């Protein structure tokens, strides 16, 4: 044993202890702030973080999380937070916290410094695709402008620059059909059962003429007949197979031409949108008015869900042990193995929360209260989903009940969030800035129910809102000076109750956004009734011009298909008929021979009986 070594270790232990005492809290604080910042996308700040290994406890005086969308405001800010960790799991390098109660969380507090941090831009993910798709659907709703009433559409210049896609598609479909017909023609040309049928026909004629004088003749004829039937059936089978293939190919050809009307409609819609003379349907009104209001929070929730999926990965991601080809030098790759106990690397079993918005006007403030359970970075190991139940209530009013679960315990992540509120005051809702439309809505008593469900990437979101009384307000400079603004002012000022139903459903590549309200039909009817005459005429003219170019091609192509179809079907039917005819003749001959055999049998039996009778008579 080295004495100096022992002293050295003692000094080292003392140094490590001192470093732990003086530096660990700061290091942990910095580490948590950095990790938190990268998760949130804005500064996360902790004041006076303290980690006590003797008591296994953690405490901090204040936690500020910046709102990434407004870096001078905090998403929330806490007061003092303290909690204890379980000792057992620590020797397995796991942090398990049974319960944390955070009181007096303030939402939306102003920051003293800018909470912006530089975060490297990430590749757009599926949520960005969804967001873009939904925004595009909202943007597709026609914009109300005066041009819609009196714009002059120059059809000639519009059509001159527009390439009618339907013509090209018809030509392409016709070229494909031509190739198919040529192939079928070649198949039929190579298929020549006529020679075999000729031979069979000759043999049938010989059979017909053949004299049958005795039993051996008869049996020979039966054998020949059976052979002929076999040969004919083989040809028939072949013909049927060819017929079925031809029929399938012809169906395919015909199917490609059934889309012509859709292609024409697409062209028509493209020209219309180019000329900005879209249809004004009730569905469009819903999207135009409330599209942003519905899409914005949905995308926000999806972003939070994506974040949760990243930090609470499902089993599939968690146990993914595929080899990383080039991990960073000396870092390697951690291989995961099944864990027998249900203690994940990090687990916060229960978080009790009590928060309030930070508003000078306390009548506008609202408080949030509730529990969140099962916060872990390894949901599969823990085996239970994250569940939460919160109630948010404005001062002295009814509350919003927000509940839900993030189930990442299986291979497919499933999230569910439900919001219910009755008798709550919505107050002012900002509406998107659009010409002639109100820019805000004031709603007094409202009833809301929203159900957000996400299974993997398939979204099912429904929201129902009824508000009464409501008041739509226009921008101060929006005076009812023209037809459209007069209509919109009139319609919106007459609305007392707002009933809104919205839904977003489907996978990212096929999302359907539907919004309807009691305002839609009223406004759409009124706008339609004053739509400019020139716009109506322009639409009809565009349709006529498109039809003028497409119709002849369509007729020719359909005629071409019909002719070839009839020719090829006729050819194969002719062969089929020939085979059936020969088969009928041979079948008839077979029946005749069977009759002959029966007759011969009867004669043989009678002859035998007579001979037996004769024998008995002689004996007597």
């Amino acid at each position, binding site marked *: *044993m*080295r004495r100096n*070594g*022992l002293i*050295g*270790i003692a000094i080292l232990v003392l140094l490590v202890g001192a470093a732990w005492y003086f530096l660990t809290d700061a290091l942990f604080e910095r580490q948590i702030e950095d990790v938190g910042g990268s998760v949130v996308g804005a500064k996360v700040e902790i004041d006076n973080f303290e980690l006590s290994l003797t008591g296994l406890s953690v405490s901090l005086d204040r936690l500020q999380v910046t709102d990434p969308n407004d870096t001078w405001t905090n998403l929330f800010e806490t007061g003092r937070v303290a909690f204890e960790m379980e000792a057992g799991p620590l*020797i*397995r*390098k*796991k942090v398990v916290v049974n319960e944390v109660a955070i009181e007096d969380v303030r939402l939306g507090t102003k920051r003293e410094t800018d909470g912006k941090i530089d975060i490297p831009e990430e590749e757009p993910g599926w949520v960005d695709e969804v967001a873009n798709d939904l925004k595009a659907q909202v943007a597709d709703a026609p914009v109300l402008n005066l041009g819609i009433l009196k714009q002059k559409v120059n059809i000639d210049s519009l059509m001159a620059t527009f390439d009618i896609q339907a013509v090209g598609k018809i030509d392409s479909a016709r070229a494909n059909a031509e190739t198919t017909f040529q192939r079928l023609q070649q198949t039929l040309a190579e298929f020549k059962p006529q020679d075999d049928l000729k031979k069979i026909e000759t043999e049938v004629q010989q059979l017909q003429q053949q004299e049958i004088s005795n039993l051996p003749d008869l049996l020979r004829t039966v054998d020949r007949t059976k052979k002929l039937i076999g040969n004919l059936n083989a040809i028939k089978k072949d013909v049927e197979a060819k017929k079925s293939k031809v029929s399938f190919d012809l169906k395919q050809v015909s199917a490609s031409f059934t889309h012509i009307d859709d292609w024409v409609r697409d062209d028509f819609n493209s020209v219309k949108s180019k000329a900005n003379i879209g249809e004004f349907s009730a569905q469009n009104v819903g999207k135009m008015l409330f599209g942003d209001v519905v899409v914005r929070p949905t995308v926000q929730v999806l972003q939070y869900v994506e974040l949760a999926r990243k930090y609470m990965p499902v089993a599939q991601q968690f146990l993914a*042990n595929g*080899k990383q080809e*080039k*991990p960073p*030098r*000396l*870092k*390697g*790759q*951690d*291989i*995961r*193995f*099944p*864990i*027998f*106990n249900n203690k994940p690397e990090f687990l916060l079993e229960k978080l009790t929360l009590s928060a309030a918005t930070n508003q000078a006007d306390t009548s506008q403030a609202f408080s949030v209260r509730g529990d969140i359970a099962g916060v872990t970075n390894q949901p599969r190991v823990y085996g239970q989903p994250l569940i939460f139940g919160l109630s948010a209530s404005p001062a002295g009013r009814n509350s919003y009940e927000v509940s839900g679960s993030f189930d990442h315990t299986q291979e497919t992540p499933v999230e569910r969030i439900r919001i219910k509120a009755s008798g709550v005051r919505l107050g002012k809702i900002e509406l998107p800035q659009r010409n002639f439309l109100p820019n805000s809505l004031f709603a007094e008593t409202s009833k809301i129910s929203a159900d957000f469900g996400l299974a993997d990437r398939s979204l099912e979101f429904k929201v129902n809102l009824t508000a009464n009384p409501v008041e739509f307000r226009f921008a101060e400079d929006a005076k009812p000076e023209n037809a459209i603004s007069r209509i919109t002012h009139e319609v919106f000022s007459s609305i007392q109750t707002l009933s809104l139903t919205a839904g977003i459903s489907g996978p990212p590549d096929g999302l359907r956004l539907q919004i309807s309200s009691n305002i839609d039909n009223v406004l759409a009817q009124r706008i339609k009734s004053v739509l400019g005459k020139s716009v109506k005429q322009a639409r009809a003219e565009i349709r006529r011009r498109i039809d003028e170019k497409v119709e002849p091609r369509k007729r020719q192509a359909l005629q071409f298909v019909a002719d070839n179809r009839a020719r090829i079907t006729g050819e194969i039917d002719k062969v089929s008929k020939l085979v059936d005819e020969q088969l009928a003749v041979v079948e008839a001959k077979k029946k005749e021979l069977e009759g002959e055999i029966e007759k011969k049998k009867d004669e043989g039996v009678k002859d035998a009986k007579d001979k037996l009778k004769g024998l008995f008579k002689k004996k007597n």
Partner: protein
Amino acid sequence: MFFLKFISKFIKVLHAGESPPLIAAGFTMGFVVGLTPLLTLQNVLILLIAFLTKVNLASVFFAMFAFGFVAYLIDPLYHSLGYYTLAEIQNIKPLWTAVYNWPVAPYTRFNNTVVMGSFLVALVLAVPVYFGVRKGIVAYRATFGKRIENSKIVKAIKGSSLYKWYVRIRDLEWN
């Protein structure tokens, strides 16, 4: 300077003083620690043993730093070997699963491909390294040591201004 200090001290012990087994043991410990990622429980234990026993510490640190560079160079080999051992040999997966669930085991970071791969390489080579170094020191002291000391190259190096500068710096630090 830190590294030169260990080289200088290591060369000194090669010439005389410490017994070859203690130098070889220290070298082997440093070799294992140097070849594997430093912050693991097993490395802490090895260093603790090195401090508490009478193995030559200069050779521990010399080998640690020297093989630290080697480790960096052959890191991809470690990763592949570690991945193969941990993820591709099906028969020993139950063993890894059991170890994974032991207390303290996570601190060894055995489930990391580089830790596992390097530790295996170090473990396999440790015995030949120990005997090789021990034999090498004896041979060096008996034959090459004096010859190298008296060689023209060493004399030239010792006479060089760089060496004199080094000795000046070294003595400044050590006295």
